[in-house]
């Protein structure tokens, strides 16, 4: 007889409400049916009542973790409709905050992941260092988690000299700390016991399953939209995607740790190249036409589709978030795993249900 249990929505290892109906035979998962909808709010309908400026605040709240980049990507999508060029300083600022956001997001994930395999003190280590990034955010944009720094046409905040000094100083102290954490994730015997070879996806499988972000790159696919000409700032910043070959939970962890270093590098480069000038251009009128904008979020590639109809309100807004792309891969990786591995495998795609369901 198989064991059938609900896993979620309210479950301490799942910070977000998602429910899996697990069928387990001999401690091995044989069937899984995800249940979504616990955080479906219906954001895409909001454009009927909110204008394109207000919609930005809603997009930021698609998910509180990568909210900065949601705001940026939305703004860039609308800017594409208007066909305006954002001042260069604003572009750099967006990158700085965006990458800081990624650092906080990855540290957060590393912590939750550690918690997922019962390593509480490692979880605390990760979150301890993450706070320094949040302090930067609080000081520079006025809020720890939801930043509201982007706006259509540029950014709403600027970085002062002292802010920049603080950021550089924080990064200098953060980097060795990350090295410490990395050692544990990469070398600890029990951690490796849990992660190596778990939920392996081959390069081909990860590609065809439509996964995104570290999940995709952990399987050896060097795909990161920061490389595209879409957002050419990154080209100037000497960006390289972080890729691991093995495709297991261990590899995905290493990708995210590698991206921490990459982000630190990007922030430093962006600061060193930060031009002077305006931080926003005024936007007038109402958008028309269709545009697709992509951006690499901490969890992977996000796709924004916007369609204007010549009024302040958009006609259609559609967001394909990274977790949305990654969830189907769970259907492939969960069967065959042990029950104790379920939280790890779920967490390994860095799920963000709130953006999946919007």
């Amino acid at each position, binding site marked *: 007889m198989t064991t059938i249990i609900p896993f979620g929505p309210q479950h301490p290892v799942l910070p977000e409400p998602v429910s899996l109906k697990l069928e387990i035979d001999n401690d091995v998962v044989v069937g899984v049916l995800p249940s979504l909808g616990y955080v479906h*709010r219906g954001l895409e*309908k909001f454009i009927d009542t909110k204008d394109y400026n207000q919609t930005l605040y809603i997009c930021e709240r698609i998910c509180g973790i990568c909210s900065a980049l949601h705001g940026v990507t939305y703004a860039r999508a609308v800017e594409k409709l208007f066909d305006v060029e954002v001042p260069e300083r604003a572009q750099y600022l967006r990158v700085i905050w965006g990458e800081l956001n990624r650092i906080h997001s990855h540290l957060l994930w590393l912590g939750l992941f550690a918690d997922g395999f019962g390593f509480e003190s490692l979880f605390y280590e990760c979150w301890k260092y993450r706070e320094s990034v949040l302090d930067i955010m609080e000081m520079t944009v006025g809020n720890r988690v939801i930043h509201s720094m982007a706006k259509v046409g540029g950014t709403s905040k600027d970085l002062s000299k002292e802010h920049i000094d603080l950021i550089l100083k924080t990064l200098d102290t953060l980097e060795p700390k990350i090295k410490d954490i990395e050692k544990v994730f990469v070398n600890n015997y029990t951690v490796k016991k849990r992660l190596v070879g778990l939920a392996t996806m081959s390069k081909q499988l990860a590609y065809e399953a439509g996964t995104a972000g570290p999940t995709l790159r952990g399987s050896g696919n060097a795909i990161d939209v920061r490389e595209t000409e879409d957002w050419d700032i990154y080209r100037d910043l000497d960006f390289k995607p972080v890729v691991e070959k093995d495709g297991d939970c261990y590899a995905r962890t290493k990708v995210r740790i590698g991206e921490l270093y990459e982000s630190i590098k990007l922030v430093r480069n962006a600061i060193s190249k930060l031009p002077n000038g305006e931080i926003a251009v005024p936007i007038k009128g109402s958008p028309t036409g269709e545009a697709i904008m992509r951006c690499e979020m901490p969890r992977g590639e996000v796709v924004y589709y916007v369609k204007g109809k010549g009024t302040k309100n958009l006609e259609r807004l559609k967001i394909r978030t990274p977790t949305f792309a990654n969830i189907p891969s769970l259907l492939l990786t969960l069967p065959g795993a042990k029950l104790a591995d379920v939280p790890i495998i779920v967490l390994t795609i860095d799920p963000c249900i709130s953006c999946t369901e919007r």
Partner: protein
Amino acid sequence: MSLAKSPWIIHVNCNSCNGCDIEVVACLTPLYDAERFGLLNIGTPKQADIMVVTGSVNYKSVNVLKNIYNQIPDPKVVLAVGACASTGGIFHDCYNVIGGVDQIIPVDAYVPGCCPKPEAIIDGVVAALSILENKKKGNIRGKEVKLKGKEVASNA
């Protein structure tokens, strides 16, 4: 004072954007270390005293919320964290949003903000604790929140 020294919380993410949730979790981490007050994030409602709810309520999470509330032994308090949980916040008029948590279960304290700082959440817990003490003294019990037929409706 026994209750106030050992608040065990259960965190229920109802319909939230994660902003509030990560701040709730941040309260437990070394920088804020809510365990200084004996606070534990206990996984099961059966052992919790304080129900920390983040996010507004939607049609799917409503019976989860009720079930969890009913499974917390008295005395208990409910703390709504963030604009969403308090009033529905920015999502208050979304089609799938019923509203703030107090539309469904009695809420004892609210924490404003989107998202609130961990300090604010700690303030909220402290406020909740005195309410908890009062409830114990006055032997005030939470009413069993019934699941309405409509809410448990299935397509089976």
